[in-house]
């Protein structure tokens, strides 16, 4: 890393400039003092003052003044305005002064260029200072935060990952605020719902005090955001259990389920999609795509019920409800959960492969004499897989959310059915925790996918070099 060059680059980047100045405040302050001192005896300023003075004395000033007066008169007559001579004179003076200053800058720069000296700027001063080992050593201690930021900035990959993470932090914060606000605005009264109709006003007030519901919006919001970040959302309204502990117990169940069905659907869908694209408009293409469309159209709870009806009630092959000890009981929920994803990925694979196999480089590959297999694996799939991964990433989020329904059908005590169970009260910390932690998981997965792109897609990799 070249600190001087990185500093200059960051200074020019408006989204980093202020962080740079803020994080390296001691270093920047020192540099600023040096800059002011240097400015006084700087060649540029000396020359500029000379030129400006010379211009003021010369007849250039008179010429500009006359010109400006003429222009202002024309303007006034065009717009039909009248100005008092006093104001006119002042306007002419100020415009003339401006023009003279511009003239002086231009002439100074021309002269300096002839001599080969450049204007001293703040960044230039810092760059010069950083090149000196003593200043650099001191600044390392004083501006350690600034150097950390510069280190991040100097490597495009690290910078990209850093920006992505900062962005998702903001998203997570936004999600927390949004969900809490929705629940705060709720006209429902959890206290009355839990204590029953016979509860007295004092009991309700007591309940609200215990759970902090009597505090102002901002206090409650702050407490909840703090709770989300420190994994301590307090106790749930009903059942008196630690919310985060319960979520930590239920979340892995949902996650296991989704990951298994994700793996299953990807394994099934990608070969089907590629096959359909390669044999376009054939029997297999029609059949697979029709089945995929049905898969998209089937409501998961209905599919679950039909599965239970046929495979559990009638055939007795599989257990109807989920049981962690019994691996067989995982089959139906994962198939139901994965159906929509399988269908979406198969359709996406087909269309993206179709798009790729019409590209020119496929013809080139064929012309080079590669066989069908090499063309397919080396060129078609590698290019077609990018949009497919995007769809998988998006669908994974939908799957985590949609698992609520499947979990209800198969009686799985995952995070989805937890949120649904809690919403009747409404149990604010539980719902908030459930929704926000799910959203956080999805955001993190999307960050990972984006970062993987940056590493694996050669096109993005080239772009990153100029990032």
């Amino acid at each position, binding site marked *: 890393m070249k600190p001087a060059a990185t500093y200059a680059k960051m200074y020019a980047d408006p989204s980093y400039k202020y962080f740079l100045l803020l994080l390296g405040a001691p270093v920047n302050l020192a540099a600023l003092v040096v800059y002011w001192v240097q400015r006084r005896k700087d060649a540029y300023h000396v020359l500029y003052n000379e030129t400006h003075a010379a211009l003021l004395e010369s007849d250039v000033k008179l010429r500009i003044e006359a010109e400006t007066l003429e222009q202002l008169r024309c303007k006034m007559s065009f717009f039909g305005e009248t100005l008092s001579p006093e104001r006119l004179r002042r306007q002419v003076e100020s415009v003339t002064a401006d023009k003279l200053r511009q003239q002086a800058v231009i002439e100074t720069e021309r002269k300096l260029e002839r001599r080969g000296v450049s204007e001293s700027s703040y960044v230039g001063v810092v760059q010069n200072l950083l090149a000196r080992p003593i200043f650099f050593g001191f600044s390392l201690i004083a501006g350690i935060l600034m150097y950390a930021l510069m280190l991040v900035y100097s490597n495009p990959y690290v910078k990209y990952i850093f920006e992505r993470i900062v962005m998702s932090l903001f998203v997570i914060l936004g*999600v927390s605020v949004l969900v809490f606000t929705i629940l705060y605005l709720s006209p*429902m009264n959890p206290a009355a719902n839990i204590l029953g109709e016979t509860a007295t006003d004092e009991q309700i007030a007591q309940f609200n005090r215990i759970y902090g519901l009597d505090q102002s919006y901002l206090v409650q919001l702050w407490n909840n955001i703090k709770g989300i970040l420190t994994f301590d959302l307090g106790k749930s309204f009903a059942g008196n259990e630690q919310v985060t502990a319960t979520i930590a117990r239920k979340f892995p169940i949902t996650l296991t389920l989704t990951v298994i069905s994700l793996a299953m659907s990807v394994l099934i869908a990608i070969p089907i999609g590629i096959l359909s694209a390669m044999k376009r408009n054939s029997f297999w293409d029609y059949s697979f795509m029709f089945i995929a469309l049905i898969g998209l*159209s089937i409501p998961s*709870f*209905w599919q679950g019920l039909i599965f239970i009806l046929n495979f559990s009630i009638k055939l007795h092959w599989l257990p109807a409800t989920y049981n962690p000890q019994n691996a067989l009981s995982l089959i139906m929920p994962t198939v139901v959960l994965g159906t929509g994803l399988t269908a979406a990925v198969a359709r996406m694979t087909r269309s993206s492969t179709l798009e790729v196999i019409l590209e020119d480089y496929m013809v080139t590959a064929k012309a080079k004499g590669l066989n069908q297999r090499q063309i397919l694996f080396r060129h078609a799939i590698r290019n077609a897989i990018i949009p497919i991964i995007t769809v998988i990433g998006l669908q994974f989020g939908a799957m985590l*959310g*949609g698992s609520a329904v499947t979990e209800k059908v198969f009686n799985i005590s995952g995070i989805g059915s937890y949120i649904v169970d809690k*919403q009747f009260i409404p149990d604010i910390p539980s719902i908030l925790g459930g*929704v926000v932690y*799910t959203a956080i998981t999805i955001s993190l997965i999307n960050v990972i996918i984006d970062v993987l792109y940056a590493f694996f897609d050669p096109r993005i990799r080239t772009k990153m070099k100029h990032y």
Partner: protein
Amino acid sequence: MAKLTFKSSLEYSEATFSWIVTAGIAVILLLSSYDLWTQAVRPSVLIIALVYLLFALLQLGLAWRIRNDIARSGAIRSSTRALGYIQLLSLFSGNLFITASALHLIKRDRNTEYTLAVYTLLTGLFVIAISALNLFKPYVADTFLPAISLLLITTGFHLISLLLVARFMKGRIAAPWLSPVAILLILTSVTGNLFALLLGINLLIKIRHNGKPATAKWEEVWGKLTRSTTSMIGLFFIVFLFSMAVCSYFTFDYAMATENNYSAILQHPSLAYPLGTDNFGRCLFTRIVFGARISLIVGFFSTLIPVVIGGALGAISGYYGRRTDNIIMRLLDVLYAIPGILLAIAIIAAFGANTFNLIIALSVGAIPTYARTMRANVLLVSTFEYVEAARALGTRDLLIIIKHIIPGSLAPMIVKSTLTIGAAVISTSSLSFLGLGVEPHIPEWGNILKLGSTYLESHSYLAIYPGLAIILLVLSFNFLGDGLRDALDPKLG
């Protein structure tokens, strides 16, 4: 070469597709004709399955014949086209795939109006057939007889207009005296038969332009759409359900769907109760018919609201760019991070479960996707020269957005919204199934299913039929969406 020719033939690909689908349905019916529970065969289902299988085999033969015809002479012989009349009989088994394919086979040079007229007639016939099932009930609604006679008269008129269109419509030239027919057709669309409306509008446009392609885009889109069987079948089912929802006000008795009748509890399907009755003795068939109304309403509004709001936000952020864009899109990222169903659950948890809240809850989660789609389109369209020209002429920003940018970037929005109405229908019924959607006393498909799921062991039909209705409606929207995508913007596919 020969292989390419028959593959690109529309008749051949339709015939292939329809026999595959029919065979698939036949196999499913065959499987369900054998009751695993009682180890017995259901004769009625078996007969229907065999009928489907027969038509599938006939259609397979027909597809083979078309293939040979094209391979030999490059065109389909008239004798092969005549075979389509036999396949028309499949209409009586309710098999639209083969019927549609046969109708396309029969007429050599068909046009948009012919296809629309056929579907107008089919919709009317189906609505009458379904409404007529009420005749087997102990009693019918007071308005049943006048309503059904009106429907019969309308359908008769639709038949006449089909014949007129087939006879007097050559290419894109329509006989000018057809305009009263067109206006009457538009009037008959009050029965919910949107095909009649479309046909009337199309006829009027053609008559007015007298064969000159003045509205090329509209004609082209409808031309492409009517040529694709699957999207027309999708549109048919949607229009049919819509028409059913409108006509059921007069031909169905709402009390049958909501009032308890303890003398007819949990009856198996019969002629009086075509799909059986539930645990309160309510007719499942009538309930499903009334459920269509609420599904269509919720699906429509929970798509329309995010299209308007998301579209506006996307247009603004795409057009103004820079800081506006950054702020709007970052805020929408927050909404985008929460899965739609979870956000809906949170909103409903806060404000209570009813239809209005359901629509709002589903709408809010869908805003960011529409905003992103719109933004991408607007970014593209605003670089076009006509936008620059408008700006150079000094048109105000708002006017540019409304008059030039939005019309230019609407196509992908239409496609996307059609595809997501289906998803909204699924979400509606899913939330109702969880007890978070439509109020439990309203006959909505998810509610019916929730009730039926408790009788899964003994009366599984209570859960199966509403689910089938949901699948058919969602499938129709997906078919239509795919067709619209191909018609509006082939690049999107």
